């Protein structure tokens, strides 16, 4: 279980998060929505250890996650995607995917030199998993292309694929559907539900309200760095404050 308690962050005078608390549970998908600039990505970065909060703590299964140490957080089984994808641009799509795989013996020099067989077996397994995932994301035909040459939507998909390769306990997704075509969004929905069904915790930032309504078990709404509403997707849609600040007339 992920629990965020009273987290506050400010940047050069801007209060980006102002005492946010929320919980996300294994097997469930938590949606995080809110107007642009309300602090959603900032909150995700706090959980992921990229930003150390001024106040507050983040606990995963009751143990605090290291603040400001993204690699240590990731090592605890937390994977994340970026709103603007970070990729190893000159490496191929397949290499990016393989880099996502956790626990690779071939990354230790000693294993490489003295037990190369072990490294090779693990690598073969990772390659299988990577191509499996690429197939599902519709990127398999691009496996040997540089990641930097992918289209905007494809980069989003790759970013998500890399996060999945890590076999995470907690997965943090920052607008995975933005720029992705509707058919693949439908795939993503299936995919996320399957992840949750396997007992993982999912936190999803998304502006695509159909997708949110479709996959989220619970939704938290941020505005100006504070939680203004929480509940089921249906409840949220009826909330007047949310209507005003976030959904607008049409939503």
């Amino acid at each position, binding site marked *: 279980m992920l629990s965020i308690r009273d987290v506050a962050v400010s940047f050069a005078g801007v209060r980006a998060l102002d005492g946010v608390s929320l919980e996300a549970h294994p097997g469930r998908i938590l949606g995080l929505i809110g107007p642009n600039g309300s602090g959603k*990505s900032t909150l995700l*970065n706090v959980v992921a250890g*990229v930003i150390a909060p001024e106040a507050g703590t983040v606990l995963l299964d009751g143990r605090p996650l290291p603040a400001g140490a993204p690699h240590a957080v990731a090592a605890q089984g937390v994977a994340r995607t*970026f*709103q*603007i994808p*970070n990729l190893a641009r000159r490496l191929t799509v397949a290499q990016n995917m393989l880099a996502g795989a956790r626990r690779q013996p071939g990354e230790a020099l000693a294993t490489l030199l003295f037990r190369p067989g072990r490294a090779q077996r693990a690598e073969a397994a990772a390659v299988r998993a990577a191509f499996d995932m690429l197939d599902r994301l519709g990127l398999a035909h691009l496996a040997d292309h540089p990641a930097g040459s992918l289209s905007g939507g494809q980069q989003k998909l790759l970013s998500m694929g890399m996060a999945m390769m890590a076999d995470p306990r907690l997965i943090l997704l*920052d607008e995975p559907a933005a720029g992705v075509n509707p058919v693949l969004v439908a795939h993503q929905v299936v995919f996320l539900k399957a992840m949750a069904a396997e007992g993982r915790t999912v936190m999803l930032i998304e502006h695509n309200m159909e997708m949110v309504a479709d996959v989220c078990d619970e939704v938290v709404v941020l505005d100006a760095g504070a939680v203004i509403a929480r509940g089921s997707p249906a409840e949220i849609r009826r909330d007047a404050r949310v209507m005003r600040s976030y959904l607008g007339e049409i939503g």
Partner: protein
Amino acid sequence: MLQVLVNALVYASEIAIIAVGVALTYSVVRFANFAHIQYAVIGAYASFALDRCGLPLPLAVAVSAALTGLLAIAVERLVFAPLQGLRPEAKMIVSWGVALLLRSLVAAVFGGAAQVFEVETDSHLVGDAVVTGLDIAVVATTILAMTALHLAMTRTRIGTALRALADNRDLARTRGIAPERLTALMWFVSGAFAALGGTLFALETRLQPDMDLQILLPVFAAVTLGGLTSVGGAVLGACILSLAQNIAIGVDFGALFTSGSWFLPSQFRDTIAVAAMVLVLCLRPRHHRSSGLR
């Protein structure tokens, strides 16, 4: 003590005016142009030759600055422009090749031996420090040139466009910014500044085809200390470096603490300067690369 400050100021001026050119080009083309230092040398030699031809010194410097600016544009067109998209380290190495080529040509034309400007200036005693008219001219020229450049970069539309071009070339083009014209202007300005700085440096010291090797380290150290891309930063970097170097050996540490007098042996001058630079670099506030954050 006052003398130490005077020396530091003069040296900082010479370094800074060359350093801003490096920062300016770095900010737009994103590589450290080693040939820039050689532009300074060529500018100094051009001023020298024109001065020898009988031109009044200020005019000689102006003509030399213009010529060097054009040279910088020519090098950009012939060498750097075709290499667009290459990794910055490769461009840096190419610029080193350009520097080598230009240096050998200067040496072939003017000879490898040192030359000096024949300028005689008066000395004034300010407090207990000696200040020459040349010192004052050097510092004043630098301050003027820097202020003008700083204002041009931050206050004018063209300056902002240059920074925009540096930031995102394709996007800049789609805003109607013509990169070729603007970069040509940028190269011209940085070449001209290099020539000016090189001439000031040579006026205070001497001319030598390989004087770039002596200027290189302090200039790049100043630019790096100042954050690589800003005019103000380069000036600040030059001041820090110059002060560290001059104070380290110019100050009587013995007299400061006891009655005796003890100077740091001056052969440690460079060591101290470099050490100060490393220290400042390590202690300066961490630079967040925000691109990684979202």
